[in-house]
């Protein structure tokens, strides 16, 4: 295995090698069979017809074999979790993983119902791992994709997520969301003395760690487009204000110089500014803070409480939540603060709007008849669709491909001591199926889904 600085590694791998993340290189493998172009499966079929895929363990000797097996299981878990793939049971496999990695015997995979097949091989050299991966279309016996990765051994999970995203994109025709992380608020203790800490984990729940120590409450984390910085609300020194958190350095700093409370931050799509809400007197208004000059500019002064602003992905518009008309509704205005118009007209109150990364939908929380719901509507307010409903739920956040949302779901207290209350993260496909609880070590709220890490 090559162990050399990045430049010479790139030269050794060939001109096509690309650095996909710090320390992780990828390059295409020569096709072993006829190679297809483009996606093979139409995503509109996905709900009723998840793609049957076989993911045998990646081959390898000794430790490499163990890592190869783990990589395959991470991929399998990702694909299954999306609800868009149906993994073929391992017990049904006829050809061994080792043999398939050399040359798939397509007949063996066809008869057990696999439509797609992944094969792979892992090798360890010193502190680096090299993983070869191929994706096959079983029926026409074609290779769809062949890619190799090298990375520091400790990054093997990243490779598994990158491969999962390749599979997702090649088979479904849109980008995946597996190489991402989720930041959220970890909650513990009784509700009147709740401990609220920022925590971060891979989207599949692995590599969990706490970012703050609980000496002050932390709420509503949101990712910078580069995924290395988080804006959140902190009760540090009992002054609730928006802070920035640098994930590389761990450094926290207050944002802006506002006299009152600041809350509900979100980065602009270009990452150069933050919009937030600041309270003053009877009002809360929306401001934009330039991260370079740190200068603030007021965007709304419409009276009432204007909170939860979120940019459209092209940066031209802002959706926000306001009670200026009497109760909480959603409004869209231009990014410079002009021309606010109400877009929510259904039954009940509407809150926590968040714009899909695709630009085509706005997700929201709706409160009506004592029930909470998560839904989506088009940016002009048409096409409202409720995805999930219950006693308590709020705070939707989109996966970077706009296909899946995460939010948190609460259950009510059964008695005056608060027994039975819980708050957990959940995810759902925007088509309204595959609702799943996301495992976290403690109660959880305010999830924020990161952009793709690479």
């Amino acid at each position, binding site marked *: 295995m090559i162990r050399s600085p990045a430049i010479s590694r790139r030269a050794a791998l060939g001109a096509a090698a690309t650095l996909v993340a710090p320390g992780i290189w990828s390059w295409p493998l020569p096709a072993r069979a006829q190679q297809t172009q483009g996606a093979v499966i139409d995503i509109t079929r996905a709900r009723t017809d998840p793609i049957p895929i076989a993911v045998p363990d990646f081959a390898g000797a000794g430790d490499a074999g163990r890592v190869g097996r783990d990589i395959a299981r991470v991929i399998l878990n990702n694909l299954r979790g999306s609800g868009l793939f149906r993994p073929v049971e391992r017990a049904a496999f006829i050809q061994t993983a080792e043999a398939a990695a050399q040359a798939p015997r397509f007949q063996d995979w066809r008869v057990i119902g696999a439509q797609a097949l992944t094969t792979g091989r892992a090798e360890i050299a010193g502190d680096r791992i090299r993983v070869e991966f191929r994706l096959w279309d079983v029926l026409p016996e074609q290779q769809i994709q062949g890619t190799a990765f090298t990375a520091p051994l400790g990054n093997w999970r990243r490779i598994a997520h990158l491969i999962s995203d390749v599979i997702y994109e090649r088979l479904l025709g849109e980008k995946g969301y597996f190489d991402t992380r989720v930041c959220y608020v970890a909650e513990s203790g*009784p*509700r*009147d*003395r*709740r401990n*609220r800490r920022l925590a971060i984990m891979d989207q599949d729940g692995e590599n969990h760690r706490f970012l703050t120590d609980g000496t002050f*409450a932390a*709420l*509503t984390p949101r990712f910078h487009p580069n995924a290395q910085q988080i804006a959140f*609300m902190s009760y540090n020194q*009992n*002054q*609730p204000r928006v802070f920035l958190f640098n994930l590389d350095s761990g450094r926290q700093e207050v944002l802006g110089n506002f006299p*009152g*409370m600041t*809350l*509900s931050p979100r980065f602009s799509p270009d990452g150069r500014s933050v919009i937030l*809400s600041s*309270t003053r*007197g*009877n009002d*809360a208004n929306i401001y934009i803070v330039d991260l370079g000059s740190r200068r603030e500019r007021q965007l709304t002064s419409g009276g009432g*409480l204007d*909170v*939860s602003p979120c940019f459209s992905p092209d940066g031209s518009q802002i959706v926000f*939540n306001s*009670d200026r008309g009497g*109760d*909480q509704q959603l409004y869209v205005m231009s990014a410079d603060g002009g021309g606010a118009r109400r877009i929510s007209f259904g039954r009940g*109150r509407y*809150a*926590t709007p968040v714009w899909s990364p695709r630009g085509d939908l706005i997700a929201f*929380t709706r*409160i009506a008849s*004592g029930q909470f719901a998560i839904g989506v509507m088009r940016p002009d307010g048409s096409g409202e669709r409720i995805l999930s409903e219950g*006693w*308590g739920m*709020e*705070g939707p956040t989109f996966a970077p491909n706009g296909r899946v949302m995460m939010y948190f779901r*609460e259950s*009510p*207290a*059964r*008695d*005056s*001591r*608060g027994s039975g*209350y819980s708050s957990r993260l959940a995810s759902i496909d925007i088509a309204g199926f595959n609702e799943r609880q996301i495992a976290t070590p403690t109660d959880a*709220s*305010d999830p924020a889904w990161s952009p793709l890490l690479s």
Partner: protein
Amino acid sequence: MMNPKLLGAVAALALLAACESSTDQNAAATGAGAGGAAGGLGTGLGSGAVRPGSQEDLVANVGDRVFFATDRSTIAADQRPVLDRQATWLRQYPQVTVTVEGHADERGTREYNLALGQRRANAARDVLVAGGVGGSRINTISYGKDRPAALGSNEDAWAQNRRAVTVVR
């Protein structure tokens, strides 16, 4: 001076708070925040044992909190006397500084409730200032729905949680 009839009403309110406290594991005391003195709610009642100008004094003899209707932050007529008494009390103890904590019930979204709690705290503060208390003596903070006084998930608990609590610093 406070008339005896009013004092009786205050004592009843304080008793109510003490009851809530026992059923809700000192929710009232915790709701008073870090600056509040835990316990002493019962012992302070009319006994003269409480230190004048203290949180216990405020809770037992004046009333430390006002309540709000759903999604509202205006001080209702029946809540106004509590704040008037607080203003009188604060004028009596000019060295005392307070924080007004605004809260909301759990039936709203977190961010909106944070802003709503702040608006409630400001509304209570405005009445105190109008009652002659210097604005520099009063801080405000909002906890939204995140620090309930009553832990149940029912109308009674929500009514107790939509509140502004005055806490001696």
